[in-house]
């Protein structure tokens, strides 16, 4: 995984609450067995509306999504993270993320920056005035900067460290293989197996 330090880019305002993962990527796209190539699937139903935010040419190269509360609810599909990343998003900003989505994002190198809704409102207002405003997401400092807005964001410290270092979770766990083996030796024998 690439290291993530500071990202600068165009931000798209998604003025919706409860953006569930069925909206981020409908189920019909989940039949693929590949790990990449989901950019066409992102918000595919909403993108049929010419007025949808991502259809405005000014947001063609958007890499930061500023969304309403409860982003990523519903299905556990990690394809939602892949679709956002494949489309070019590096960061999603919201006042509240669904747990599974946030976990998946951390694995896939997509930063979830949690801020107060008032910060989201100010960012929306700023982007309404000037959609080309450069937005800076500084993971080291856990800070978003845009125009005269400077706001701290919340992200799990361990996830932040992994993203900054570009580390692979499984590799980290593999270092504790002995502890896993010891734990397995002591597991109660009444537990079922599938074999």
């Amino acid at each position, binding site marked *: 995984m690439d290291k993530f330090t500071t990202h600068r880019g165009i931000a798209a305002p998604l003025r919706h609450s409860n953006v569930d993962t069925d909206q981020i990527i409908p189920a019909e796209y989940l039949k693929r*067995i590949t790990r990449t190539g989901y950019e066409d699937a992102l918000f595919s139903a909403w993108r049929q509306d010419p007025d949808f935010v991502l259809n405005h040419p000014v947001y063609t190269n958007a890499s930061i999504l500023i969304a309403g509360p*409860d982003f990523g609810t519903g299905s*556990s599909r990690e394809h939602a993270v892949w679709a956002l990343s494949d489309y070019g998003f590096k960061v999603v900003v919201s006042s509240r993320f669904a747990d599974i989505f946030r976990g998946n994002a951390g694995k896939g190198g997509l930063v979830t920056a949690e801020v107060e809704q008032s910060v989201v409102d100010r960012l929306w207002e700023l982007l309404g005035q000037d959609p080309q405003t450069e937005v800076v997401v500084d993971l080291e400092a856990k800070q978003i900067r845009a125009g005269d807005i400077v706001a701290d964001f919340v992200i799990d410290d*361990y996830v932040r460290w992994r993203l900054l270092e570009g580390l692979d979770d499984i590799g980290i766990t593999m270092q504790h293989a002995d502890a896993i083996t010891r734990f397995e030796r002591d597991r109660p024998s009444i537990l079922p197996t599938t074999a």
Partner: protein
Amino acid sequence: MVGMSKTLSEKVWDAHVVRSAEGEPDLLYIDLHLIHEVTSPQAFDGLRATGRGVRRPDLTLATEDHNVPTLDIDKPIADPISRAQVEALRTNCAEFGVPIRPLGDADQGIVHVVGPQLGLTQPGMTVVCGDSHTSTHGAFGALAFGIGTSEVEHVLATQTLPLKPFKTMAVNVEGHLPEGVTAKDLILAIIAQIGTGGGQGYVIEYRGPAIEALSMEQRMTICNMSIEAGARAGMIGPDETTFEYLRGKQRAPADFDAAVDYWRTLVTDADATFDKEVTIDAAGLSPYVTWGTNPGQGLPLRASVPAPEDFDDPAAQQAARKALDYMGLQAGTPLKEIPVDTVFLGSCTNGRIEDLRAAADILRGRKVADSVTMLVVPGSVKVRLQAQAEGLDTVFTRAGAQWRNAGCSMCLAMNPDKLRPQERSASTSNRNFEGRQGPGGRTHLVSPQVAAATAVAGHLAEPNDLPAPSELVEV
């Protein structure tokens, strides 16, 4: 003393910590890993790319459910992309030695129906699956939660997951459910009360007399929809109902009494505290239905479609406006006057034998309205065979409903069972998101009883609204 008393979820968590260190997530051991065709192919690819194997295939079980057809299951899957995905699962399971219950197998079905019916889901276990409705298994007092594909790969490789402990929430359900009010109505009412984000970061423990009175299948319906309140997991403390359900199941412990002795310790200590508590009165409930596009937008069936102005919060007002527009509904319309085109009975929420029995009791001697298509999709092959042994299939087909094979089907419309644009359903499934049951489709979440009554009436209805059934038609 702080730390001495524990909630149920904390007991299960603590019993599975392989390693903990300051500033790092706990490494949690996983007792049962269920997999299916949709969220696993990229995980197996990851194992191949890194030269890793499956650490414990004997704690892993695969089934085919999300995209399988419910008709013509003896023929090759017609949709080439679905077929490729199912074939990838079979190839991956063969290559990595993972047991599988494929289409056509007597134990095939929805992953969350199959685990419990085999007796694989037991109190005190940790259970994961690349599916958010894994919370279903919490009905047994297991800590069960949905994970993403990267985590599926992690569990395949290590049988563990690095996780921060979840916060704890108690949902106390006082009193008893009135006659005709079901577990589905209760969970829809709970979600309407705490909201789709109210459970975020929490594992919910459902407690109280109304919960204790529920059967195992009803408890599964409750825990299943914990995720719709945003919670990672839902749990119910194991009791005699749990033990009796497990007794004699294929994978139940050989020394059952010893297991029960252990399971009895899996209760929240009397003086343990939860991070959050919510109380709901069961006695005041009536059948529920969703009117909007998230599961928190629900109301008693006897109410009317709300107006955006009925909500205080501006975000809720905007969400309501958007939902009414998508759903094609007018504020003030009595919910029972909303006509539906399709009724879907099935899913991991309400696709078990008790659900089918409840719906059949209402359809017996009655006819599905001409304007309605009704699909009955059992949650597993075993449920289907049981229903046939009881003659329920005949009740459904005589009423004019379609009797299908097992799978997730129209709950998420990955297979050919989908709504057409603007088509409206009453569905016993778990999500009423935009397009969930097919692009442009409009979903009202209901109980099996309301689904059956709606199929007969042609509009949203509860069983009491129907005229008495014809006595001439009997199986």
